[in-house]
């Protein structure tokens, strides 16, 4: 294919001078890294923070987590919230249920200290 070379670095299977990796070696995730206006394909063993990976037989992709989530399992389950949000049962909320308190260090709803 014109413009596509197979002599690529890292985990690339095919790449192009302009777009970087077009496909990855097995089991790696393709991630589109921003470089100014361009997006360069790179191959990673796991998606960067703020993205979650989805494996499938022919292509492993990275997808952005929800805005209030720093690190997620998939788009519906967060693992660590952004500052100002608190994790409760996989969701990022701005406040915590009655029986819990907001922990800013862990960014989670945690049990109240027993009095």
């Amino acid at each position, binding site marked *: 294919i014109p413009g596509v070379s197979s002599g690529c670095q890292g985990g690339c299977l095919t790449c192009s001078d302009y777009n970087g990796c077009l496909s990855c070696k097995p*089991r790696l995730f393709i991630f589109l890294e921003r470089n*100014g206006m361009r997006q360069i394909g790179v191959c990673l*063993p*796991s998606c960067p923070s703020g993205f979650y990976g989805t*494996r*499938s037989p022919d292509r492993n992709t990275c997808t952005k987590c929800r805005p209030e989530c720093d690190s997620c399992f998939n788009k*519906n389950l967060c693992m660590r919230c952004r500052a100002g949000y608190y994790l409760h049962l*996989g969701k990022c909320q701005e406040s915590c249920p009655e029986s819990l308190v907001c922990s800013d260090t862990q960014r989670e709803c945690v049990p109240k200290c*027993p*009095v």
Partner: protein
Amino acid sequence: MLCVLTVLCWSWAVLGYGYGLQKDSSRAGLCPSPCQCEEDGIFVLADCSELGLTAVPANLSHLTTYLRISGNQLRYISGLALHGLHNLKVLMLQNNQLERLPNDIPWNLPNLLSLRLDANLLSEVPARSLGGLRSLRHLWLDDNSLTEIPVSALDSLPALQAMTLALNHITHIPDHAFSNLSSLVVLHLHNNQIQTMGERCFQGLLSLETLDLNYNNLPEFPTAIRTLAKLQELGFHNNNIRAIPERAFMGNRQLQTIHFYENPIQSVGRSAFQFLPKLHTLSLNGATQIRDFPDLKGTTSLETLELSHNQIEDLPSFYHCSALQEIGLQYNNIRRIERNTFQQLSSLRSLVFIIILYITEIPPSLYRDLSENSLTSLPVGGLGGLTHLKLKGNMELYEDFSPELFTRMRVVEMPYAYQCCVYGSCDSYKSISQLETEQSSEEEELDQRTVALYPIHTDTLYDPDLEDLQMELQESKLQTNIQCSPVPGPFRPCDSL
């Protein structure tokens, strides 16, 4: 009182100790070579990924909370190799060559929250191997060689919230496979070879919201889902399911999306989709034996209803479906449309209605896209909100429809090109190539406007998703001009011949 004291001591330790640490970030013993470490207060984040390692680095600090050993050549990790890592919260072992997990002395990681074992060579998960991970919330076992659900091992993970067993060789889900996972919210089982499921295989999953059974070999509808009262997203597309039974989702009132395309579905119980008040998308295209329109009683939030390529003959009134925005009914056998069929659908934007058989009786308030028919006129009363109008193929329809009738119209397909003249200036004929150059310059202008609106500074963290951006701009651009086809031109003049 005790709680206050504990907090005070802890913060003194963090401040005092942490301060000391930050001054001397390369303290011996905290970061084993050849790993690279960062400090997080008194804790350590260790990255030993992609170093060609065949064993876990020795003398990891007990203050390690994040350990990444992905992308190496580890075949086995004994329980002792991770001894003492009581503060460890995240352990990333994906993309290694792990063939088995320790069963005699399991890993003792009481505070571990996330464990990545995906992309390894595990063919089984021994019963006791996860016994020391009682706080575990997220488990990746996808892309391994498991042939069955590790039921016994999963019994020791009461705090688990999300798990993927996708891309394995699992063929059966036994009864009570996940009975102790009451906190599980997400379960991915896609890309396996699941053929059979116990009727009570999902019992115990009291919190499950997402179940992904896509790309398996299910020959029948998974009735076992009935116990999943909190299910919101269900996928079983790309299976071998032929029928959806009556009251199929009666136990899943919270369902919002159901994906089951790419199944040889031939029949759907009329009550299959009743009482799903949160369902917003239903696509039932290509189910070759659907003759009756599914009864959508109690399913009142539908926004998209896709029923093309069936054999539906009659349409009910969509009276209760006021949220409907899009209906696809192309390639059916609809013979008659009642006057009030679409009456209440104030938010309807697109109705696609290509009918193979000719409609003979057309009540005056008939609607939109009636390609491949024999319409001679189209009563347009009440169509003001339409955004898509498709009348291609109605070779007896000569009338053109003034844009004032459709204030929100975006896409129009007419039988003849001249009918598009009312939507654009037809005073001079443009050659096809002129139209194409105009089209490409418009795209360039769109890209520049993308840049102008959202100047990307590499130093700022603002990092818009380009696709969404262009979608938005494409939408806003469309509102200003209506895409009408076929495009008039020298060989498709603006006068009716």
